[in-house]
């Protein structure tokens, strides 16, 4: 009897996950929230490091000063982006959506297409702050959505999120290591070709085992693929196009950095110690970074570093990398949409808030003038900050990730998990992409 009960309860524990989600369906719990002192309360949820939490807390303090009688309840959700999303989904199911919350560009499509986000265009048109502020065009376009065609990233669309920041993924090099090896520093404007890149990597690579110094690490596959003139999906994002010779060639080139040239950690070495740790320990010549890494690098690396243009494929002469962003979105169910918009706008566009954010090494400013003047003039690394701005401004240099354009991202995670066959040399890229394409396509179709 005891056993039977145990079995049943264990079984039920499993169903609990679903039950919890079901709990909140039904009535709306919200209403206009007012605290004991009569202040209007709006809630704001986001993820991020403790450093980011500190910055946002200060920015929110500033917002409260400009809005007497308003209190912002900042729910910082610790852990990864994935954890955050689970939490946000639970809040949604419980009808307890925060008024303002982050949505990563990879998730934007699902959320906007499900009608969970408020259209911010009317608020923006009525806003004086917005009228007087110029932010990066791409940083707004990434959060546009056309409800008639169900497409994201189109200029005809309305705005459903304000950029928290726009993150260009740029190649970074260890200046000290270059100088120690007598290698000329990468040109701030003229990119290396892939073959030049491999040669430089070979010169940078030395040592063995735990102390091995690698020329590069974690070469971004998206960059190699795009630079080689290939892509993951076709133009209207309905067909998986990984089974092209250009794609296979780019993927093989990345794999060979480790397998043939030995200038990048192998899959085994990488799982032992991630590229980020290796880089921070000065054991990698060239890697990748986003502006959010600046603060960490200022504080905890003991070498000099700078960023460089994305290496270009010998065949195409193009060097492309990805851009990602998180939006500050307003919930469709918010009871205080105007106020929520103002908070989002403040965090996205307020001069002081933006200044604070870039000075803390978290981001490139959203405000174009500030980025092009104050940020470029800042005397902290990287020196070639223009590289970041080029990726943002030039459509040939920076693209949104393939997962941004699809609602369901499992077609990509599937590819990613299976791709270790290529990274560890069990399969050639050409064989792999032939095998994986139909399976990816199946998952992509299912997600519609």
């Amino acid at each position, binding site marked *: 009897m005891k056993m039977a009960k145990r079995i049943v309860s264990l079984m*039920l524990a*499993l169903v609990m996950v679903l*039950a919890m989600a079901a709990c909140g369906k039904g009535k709306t719990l919200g209403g206009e929230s007012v605290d004991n002192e009569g202040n209007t309360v709006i809630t704001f949820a986001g993820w991020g490091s403790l450093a980011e939490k500190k910055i946002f807390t200060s920015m929110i303090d500033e917002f409260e000063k400009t809005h007497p009688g308003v209190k912002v309840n900042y729910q910082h959700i610790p852990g990864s982006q994935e954890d955050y999303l689970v939490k946000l989904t639970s809040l*949604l199911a419980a009808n307890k959506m925060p008024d303002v919350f982050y949505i990563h560009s990879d998730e934007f499509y699902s959320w906007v297409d499900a009608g969970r986000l408020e259209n911010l265009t009317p608020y923006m048109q009525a806003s004086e702050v917005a009228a007087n502020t110029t932010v990066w065009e791409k940083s707004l376009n990434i959060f546009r959505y056309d409800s008639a065609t169900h497409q994201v990233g189109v200029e005809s669309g309305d705005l459903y999120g304000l950029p928290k920041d726009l993150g260009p993924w740029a190649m970074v090099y260890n200046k000290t290591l270059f100088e120690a090896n007598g290698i000329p520093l990468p040109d701030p404007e003229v990119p290396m070709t892939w073959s030049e890149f491999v040669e430089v990597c070979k010169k940078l690579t030395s040592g063995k085992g735990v102390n091995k110094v690698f020329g590069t690490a974690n070469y971004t596959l998206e960059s190699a693929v795009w630079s080689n003139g290939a892509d993951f999906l076709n133009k209207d994002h309905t067909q998986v196009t990984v089974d092209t010779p250009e794609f296979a060639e780019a993927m093989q080139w990345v794999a060979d950095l480790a397998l043939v040239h030995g200038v990048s950690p192998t899959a085994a*070495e990488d799982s032992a110690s991630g590229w980020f740790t290796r880089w921070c320990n000065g054991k990698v010549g060239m890697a990748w970074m986003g502006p959010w890494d600046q603060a960490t690098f200022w504080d905890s690396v003991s070498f000099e570093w700078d960023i460089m243009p994305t290496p270009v494929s010998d065949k195409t002469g193009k060097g492309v990398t990805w851009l990602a962003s998180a939006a500050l979105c307003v919930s469709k169910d918010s009871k205080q949409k105007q106020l929520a918009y103002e908070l989002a706008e403040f965090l996205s566009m307020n001069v002081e808030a933006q200044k604070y954010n870039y000075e803390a090494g978290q981001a490139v400013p959203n405000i174009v003038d500030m980025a092009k003047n104050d940020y470029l003039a800042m005397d902290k690394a990287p020196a070639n900050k223009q590289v970041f701005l080029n990726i943002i401004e030039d459509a040939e240099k920076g693209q949104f990730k393939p997962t941004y354009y699809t609602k369901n991202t499992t077609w990509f995670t599937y590819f990613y998990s299976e791709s270790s066959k290529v990274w560890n040399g069990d399969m050639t890229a050409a064989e792999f992409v032939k095998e994986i394409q139909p399976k990816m396509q199946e998952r992509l179709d299912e997600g519609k």
Partner: protein
Amino acid sequence: MKKKGTASKLRRSERRAGLAFIAPIFLQFTVFFLFFMGYSLYMSMTDWNILEGTENFIGLENFKKVLEDPLFWKSLGNTIYLMIGIPVGMILAMLLALALNRKMRGKTIYRVIVYLPAVTSTVAIALLWRWIFNAEYGILNMIIQQITGKPGPNWLGDPAMVKITLILLGVWRGLGNTMLLFLAGLQNVPKEYYEVVDVAGGNAWHKLRYVTLPMMSPTYFYVIITGVIGGLQAFGDQFIITGLGPEHSAMTVVYYLYQKGFTEYNMGAACAVAWLLSLFIMAVTLIQFKMSKRWVYDGSH
């Protein structure tokens, strides 16, 4: 024969007390479990997308799709593979229990140490072991390098090793709990039986082989049942330490469920997976109960 009256009055009040005693658990069960079980069964037959709020009845479509997905079968295969840890853990726990059942100094301290992992948070353990298993800097491979002179395996990066790593971790974590159950079992073996062996001229090995081990069969049964149920629901270690693992080598059924529900927002399919898993667990458990009649000693003969 029985009269209605004073005698049955006592009966009735006893029954009332009995009902009162089971009322709380019964209420908890109906309010918190039964309703939601029914709800999730219904939802498993809808296209419930938590983000879009759709909720259309689609019959058994979810079940069909899940059963046709090779990834589901792969994750079920992985889950079953990981249960190799159950017999391994039982043997080790038995050895430990036998060792700690003797009179010795510091017995309590050892018991506490072995039991500690069972009461430590999954996340803390997982984070700790991620470092221990680190192929380059991990203490495990340092020891292997010292002893064998060769670098140790890539515990977390090699698709073939990932499962072994997870099994090792599971065995270590479960050891304390299983050991405790075995200890309790050992102490329940009647002393008279050992005396019989003495009288018959048997030695310590005979005592172990013919008294201790057979008398413990109800405990094995309990450990196996709970172990299998727990094993089929494996998720935490995978989620924190390995993720999906290279080539989905660490994807378990619950991980599959998680992916359906929380990254695809397809709660309908997630409910279907939950029900498939529940039915599977129920079937496996029933089979074990049926088979138990053959080998579990219940004191009736």
